[in-house]
């Protein structure tokens, strides 16, 4: 077994609109890796986290219901909310203290091959690394993925 709490003092953002999905992962990564997870359930909260602190990892869902208007003024497509967030992040649209090459772990229900490829393409650009896990996912798997991304 690896060292306990190797990432003590490090912070990860978990952007997921359903908080009940976050709790166990949050607790496990904290006790096992010492990684502190901050939650964001909306785009506004996620952007605020990015700009207000230096993050070491982002865990991201893709299908996020958010009432923030899209680029054309109308509602954005909630099934692509997390994907658009990832693209904007890699394109450096958010600025702030967090580098746009920050590692990203996508944990999502999206299982369509084309969509997964699109996510991985978008995430593994601009020097950033991105892993994809399909829900439901084991805690050990999440832990290994986080260790890989943060190594």
């Amino acid at each position, binding site marked *: 077994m690896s060292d306990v709490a190797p990432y003590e003092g490090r912070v990860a953002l978990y952007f997921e609109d359903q908080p009940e999905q976050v709790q166990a992962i949050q607790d496990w990564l904290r*006790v096992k890796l010492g990684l502190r997870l901050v939650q964001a359930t909306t785009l506004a909260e996620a952007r605020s986290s990015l700009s207000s602190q230096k993050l070491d990892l982002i865990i991201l869902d893709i299908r996020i219901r958010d009432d923030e208007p899209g680029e054309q003024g109308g509602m954005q497509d909630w099934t692509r909310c997390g994907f658009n967030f990832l693209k904007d992040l890699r394109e450096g649209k958010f600025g702030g203290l967090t580098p746009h090459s920050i590692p990203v772990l996508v944990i999502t229900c999206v299982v369509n091959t084309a969509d997964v490829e699109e996510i991985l393409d978008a995430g593994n650009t601009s020097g950033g690394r991105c892993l994809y896990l399909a829900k439901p996912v084991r*805690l*050990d798997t999440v832990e290994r993925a986080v260790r890989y991304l943060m190594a």
Partner: protein
Amino acid sequence: MRLWGWGLTECDPQGYPLILLMVGIHPMSLARWPFLPDRLTDVLAEDIVRFILAGSAVRLGMPTAIVEVDARADGGSFSSHISTDDPLLNFTSFCMFLRGQEGAGPRFVGAEQACLASDGQAALQFFNGQMRCDPGHSGALYTCHMGLYNYAAPITVAGRDVALILSGQRRPENPAQLEAISSNLDAMGREGSTIQVASGDKDKLKRLIEEIPLAVDDPLGRLEKEADRIAGFANEKWRLQKREHEEEFIRSLRVCDTAHEALLDADLERLLREAAEWCGVMWAALFVSERPGGSLLTKVLRSGLELAASGVWPHFNWRKAGLPDVEQGTVEEALDIRAIEKGIRGYNAPLWFGSVGFAYAVSLATGHRAMFCFGRRPDGLGLIGESDFLGRLAHQICHPYLERRQFLELKSREMEWEDATSLIGHEVRGSLQPIQAEADIVRKRVIEGETLISQERVEQALDAITGQCKALADVATEALDFWRWTVGKNHREFKRRPLAQIVRSSVEELRGFALREYIEIRVDPSVDKLPEVEVIGQTLEVALRNILENAIKYSFDRKYIEVRPRVEHGFVTLEIENFGIGIPEEERARVFEKGYRGPYRGRMTERRGMGLGAWQAREIARAHGGDIECASYAGERHPRPGDVHGFKTVFRLRLPIDQTGRFDGTE
């Protein structure tokens, strides 16, 4: 100008036509549908009439002529006189001598004009009803200005009297009548007479009286037969040309090939306009069933008719009109006025069916239905006689439209399933995620002895697993509801139930949930006075529950939800108003999209749902011939303490009171 030709298929022994085969188009002046002829020569060229007339004269053995009248003029007016090219077929020797056509030059100046005037006068009297027809005959016997016996029979084309065939110049046997002819001859040339007399010729005329033949056997019956024969030619010719024009118009009508229903509707409205203009009717409208097998035809597309300033249109009830509810095959029939009265219901219905000139029902085997209505013509022309063409016209417009709608519906159903499957997959996986993760927490502690996890956290994990199991069961229920709703679309039975009971029971079911959220549901007492409505099973409860549940979820606490009814124009509107976070204007249309959910509010203890509730409520309302809309206003009455401004949000569920039931034959 288009030429026309004809051929003889059968002749009498003298070589005159009994049956004509006519080909091509005659240069008719009939400009507007239904191309009714005003005169005989509108349909048959004058030369042809003359040729046919010669045959009639030979067969009758009597001089024969045709007088046209203008059918447009009130009571008819003299239009033209047609006779054969052969004087021997036109006149007896008496008349010929009198008219100066025997020998050189006219002996009796004005006699020919007097003769023509007499024929014209006879036609006017006949069509004005001043000439009494013989019993059992359509024609009549009359005497000309000289006192000779003549016979007249009408030529009817397209139901209109367009000419009168005259025959006769027979000598009366009655001595008094014979004496009258002599008196008429004596009067010629005297003061006041229009005919100038040449000397010595009166005596010859008096001698010629003796040579005038007596009437042949059954002269009127035989003349009527000739009139019918000419009318037969003309009618056949008229029908051929009319049919050709109609086919040409029908061929020109095309429903556009589009994947957008809005464009399809616009295209149909264009076709209705073209049809109305071509047929010269005041308007055309189409009722269409919103769903296959639906008795309610609520979609109204129209041209030239604005009888619903309020935006509320009447509807057509297939069953109440007495139309068969066929599972297989199609219905295509013209409706009688009684069926229209029974079928058109709701707002302004009497005005509608009061101005319908013709209606035609069309259905596909798939249960897609339409009712095509033509308004009346300003000239009062009845359209029932044109049901063959109007039916084909309705068919030509309705069938492609209904088939296109059916295609769009199948496509949208397919997309609906694709969306729903993806949504259900998302929800199931989403609910399994915490179960998996929390189970791992328990395993780490209990099985692997991970001391970093506390006993308390294990208990918390077990609670979370239990909660998520319930959420998963809810997903299954919601998915099943969705499946039932979409799959069962074609098999829905309507039953009459009291709306008050439906509202009350839906509210009671959610009252506990509302109270847990510190929200009171107030139901206006007038709800109890609501009439019975015809509903599909328990679906209305589902729709109301979905709206109320959303109203509770997105309300501020310590507030109330109001349920108010309103009855107008044959519809009940239930208003469900809450006070809460509101729905921004740009999102109101999306509220009814599948998968749409309002923003998460954190304090909710219940699962948030898949975002199918409002969509389903609207589907249910529409299946009942109603609809749902929502509005949201900045709430000034109850500003929430703190920095959040509240909004009043109203969902209006509109349902027809009396439109969905089966036709029971008692109305």
